[in-house]
């Protein structure tokens, strides 16, 4: 075709004109690390499983949790959910109730008896796990899934560790613990209960084990000497909780119980005492509320149930039916005594001053080193100085929570697997964080957090029924959909809609989008209007 003078294009569509040549920067779809995932001690991919739950695919969501944590129903109750503290939505209105959704999914799985996903083919390797607490169970689960033969040994008559003998029933019903443990046993894990392992190298050699994961926890109560006319009136918190759980003779607490300490265990004991009929449950703590290590929600609930707290106080001595406390004063160096005493009524004193690790079984193991504060020294792979012996949970230096323990179990399992295969495990590099500044919160409508139902107060003070109720199908879906999907595309079509040049190609459900670089002028509107900050603008190479 002969074109007129100065005309270089055939008549027709503007699509001959590749405006992409104007571009100095281009949009790139990225995945960023949401704050919930970044802070989860168990390494859960929370944003991902919420994404699955949002479409009502609860089974897939639950299986996504299980990839990192085999105890969702327990975790949804007993975890202190650092994810919700970090949640970007907390700065918009209120954090997503992640724990409530996790609990809903965990309960749904128990209700429908969903099994864990199948295990890999057997590797022929044997692993000994010592301690059937959250860390040991998590390690056993992951090792079994990877195809290894796992034996768990625990000194107690029932499995669960602190999930059973530490956390009271009103926070964590035992049928939930039983159901989640049974699912792990069903993978073919051997559970040997009532067996205390004192000679570790001997046990490993006798059983022909190729590796060992020890997670016996910290269950030795720390004690102090106090002048008291009758030593039987001083109990230790963890021993008390264990005794109540074992259902033996209910310890004589008396009507007025004083608990000494400021951690979660102190609150657990005080709340338990109220449920066992104590008229007064008083916590004595030597610092102020701001320093209290116990979780804020736990304290609030304890106060609701009538537990009293004496801040800035220490126990000086026990009398006959009373306890003398000394007032403290906060200084920059910590609390100091004031010399001012007060006598309060008290039949029993329960010491909740922390727990120590029983290091006896490890003392004689060659190569194993200990920290000065009585924990086991481990490397980045959670391995001790003794090759093939790994440790995790409350035994090693870390925050002592159930979630950290489960995270250690997963991490140890991956390193043990690599150890057994003669390789090393290197976790995938982490994405850059998905900060609130990258989000465009305009596109998220206001939606208030769903409140979990609570047991009425009379029953919270007299029974061990669970305090918090669960979400139902509709409220769980609502809550899941409050997730902002920080840093990860949720297919809202904004980029596809806001491009003035039709240069975003929609690939279809689950496939996301692609930029048509022939026409993208690099204006940046798609990145700016992306609600979740999943598009970066990067400079073109010139």
């Amino acid at each position, binding site marked *: 075709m002969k*074109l007129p003078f100065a*005309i270089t*294009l*055939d*008549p*027709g*569509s*503007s*699509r*001959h*004109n*590749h*405006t992409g040549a*104007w571009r100095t920067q281009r949009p790139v779809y990225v995945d960023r690390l949401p704050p919930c995932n970044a802070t989860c001690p168990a390494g859960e991919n929370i944003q991902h499983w919420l994404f699955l739950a*949002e*479409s009502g695919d609860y089974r897939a969501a639950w299986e996504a949790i299980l990839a990192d944590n085999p105890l969702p129903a327990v975790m949804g109750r007993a975890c202190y959910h650092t994810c919700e503290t970090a949640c970007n939505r907390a700065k918009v209105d209120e954090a997503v109730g992640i724990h409530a959704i996790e609990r809903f999914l965990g309960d749904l799985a128990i209700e429908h008896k969903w099994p864990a996903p199948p295990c890999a083919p057997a590797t022929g390797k044997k692993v000994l796990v010592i301690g059937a607490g959250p860390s040991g169970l998590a390690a056993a689960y992951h090792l079994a899934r990877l195809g290894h033969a796992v034996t768990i040994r625990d000194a107690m008559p029932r499995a669960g560790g602190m999930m059973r003998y530490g956390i009271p029933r009103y926070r964590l019903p035992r049928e939930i613990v039983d159901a989640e443990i049974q699912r792990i046993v069903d993978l073919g894990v051997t559970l040997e209960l009532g067996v205390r392992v004192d000679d570790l190298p001997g046990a490993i050699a006798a059983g022909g084990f190729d590796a060992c994961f020890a997670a016996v926890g910290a269950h030795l109560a720390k004690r102090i000497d106090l002048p008291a006319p009758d030593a039987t009136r001083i109990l230790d918190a963890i021993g008390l909780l264990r005794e109540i759980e074992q259902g033996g003779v209910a310890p004589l607490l008396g009507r007025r119980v004083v608990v000494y300490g400021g951690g979660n265990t102190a609150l657990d004991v005080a709340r338990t005492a109220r449920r066992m009929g104590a008229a007064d449950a008083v916590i004595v703590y030597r610092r102020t509320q701001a320093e209290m290590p116990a979780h804020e929600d736990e304290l609030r609930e304890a106060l609701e149930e009538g537990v009293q707290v004496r801040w800035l106080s220490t126990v000086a001595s026990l009398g006959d039916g009373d306890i003398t406390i000394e007032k403290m004063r906060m200084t920059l160096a910590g609390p100091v005594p004031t010399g001012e005493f007060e006598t309060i009524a008290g039949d029993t004193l329960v010491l909740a001053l922390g727990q120590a690790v029983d290091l006896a079984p490890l003392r004689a193991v060659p190569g194993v080193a200990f920290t000065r504060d009585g924990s086991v020294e481990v490397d980045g792979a959670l391995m001790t100085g003794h090759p093939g012996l790994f440790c995790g949970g409350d035994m090693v230096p870390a925050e002592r929570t159930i979630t950290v323990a489960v995270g250690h179990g997963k991490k140890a399992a991956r390193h043990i697997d690599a150890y057994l295969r003669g390789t090393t495990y290197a976790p995938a590099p982490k994405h850059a964080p998905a900060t609130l500044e990258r989000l465009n919160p*305009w*596109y*998220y*409508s*206001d*939606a208030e957090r*769903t409140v979990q*139902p609570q047991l009425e107060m009379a029953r919270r003070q007299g029974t061990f029924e669970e305090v918090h109720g669960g*979400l*139902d199908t*509709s*409220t769980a879906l*609502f809550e899941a*959909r*409050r*997730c*902002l*999907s920080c840093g990860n595309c*949720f*297919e*809202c*079509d*904004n980029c*596809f*809609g*806001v491009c*003035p*040049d*039709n*240069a975003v190609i*929609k690939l*279809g*459900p689950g496939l996301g989008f692609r930029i048509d670089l*022939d*026409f993208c*002028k*690099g*204006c*940046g*509107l798609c*990145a*700016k*209007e992306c609600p979740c900050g999943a598009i970066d*603008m990067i400079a073109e190479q010139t």
Partner: protein
Amino acid sequence: MSDQRIRFYQTGTFTVGNRLLDPSDRAVQASTARANALTSGHRACQGCGEALGARYVLDAAMRATGNQLIAVNATGCLEVFTTPSPETAWQLPWLHSLFGNAAAVATGVAAAMRVKGKPVRVIAQGGDGGTTDIGFGCLSGMFERNDDVLYVCYDNEGYMNTGVQRSSATPPTARTATTPAMGPERGNVFGTGKSLPLLAMAHNLPYVATATVADLHDLEAKVTCAMGIHGARYLHVLVPCPLGWGHPTDETIRMARLAAECGLFPVFEAVDGEVVSSTPIRRRVPVEAYLRGQKRFAHLFDGPTPDPRIARLQALADQNIRRFRLQPEVTP
């Protein structure tokens, strides 16, 4: 618990689409089957609000009319950047004649379709220059005769194509090539200009609406509503211009949003000359938040003290909010 009303959340109506929404609740723009009436390769500047607005309007109108649509265009950016002969970015029958006669030509096209017995609908469109200044005579005639045309004005508040000159839609204090930021009263002066939506209402049109490119669902609903009515209709769409307004190319939608959220650009619908509904402000901002992002208002902020004319602009915004009931929960 169970009676909790599910209002809105991640799947809310503010995004273009969403995998969790029923397809009928998603915007036309979320569909790969959208007409793309204005396709790629056009020569609009980066981040052009008008290119975006025109595609939003025409795609929605194409869906509403089953693709039985002809567009008539006034001279302006929209005509120049889409159709440099011999190529065009339009994917629908499209006609351009003169700067000032788009409304009259559209009247003729509508009459021709009626004579030929074809159920084809007509949209006339232009920028604020072609609508509020140069084409106003023809437009008023089309309104007054109640011809079956939807006239869409893409308002970027100036003659951007010819080098950012003032139009009768340029806001007070804005700097343009013909209202420079110099002299005793810098930028465009107060007390000038006109509101075409209000003038259209004065013609007793069956449907008048305003919208912005920042609220796609609102815009598409108004186009769909307009195409369901016969007679003369008017739609006024605010389309920010990165070049003429002096904001970054990725802020086009944000500027349109701020214009509506501060109250300077009221978003409403009017039927038979009466305002029947307005889109409430969701998160009200002071006009300063809107003005600061644009270089055309930079001279308001370069002195040691705030320019008193910012307060006058705020008064205009406050007046709009009262007049169009943009914050119904606030009682004066």
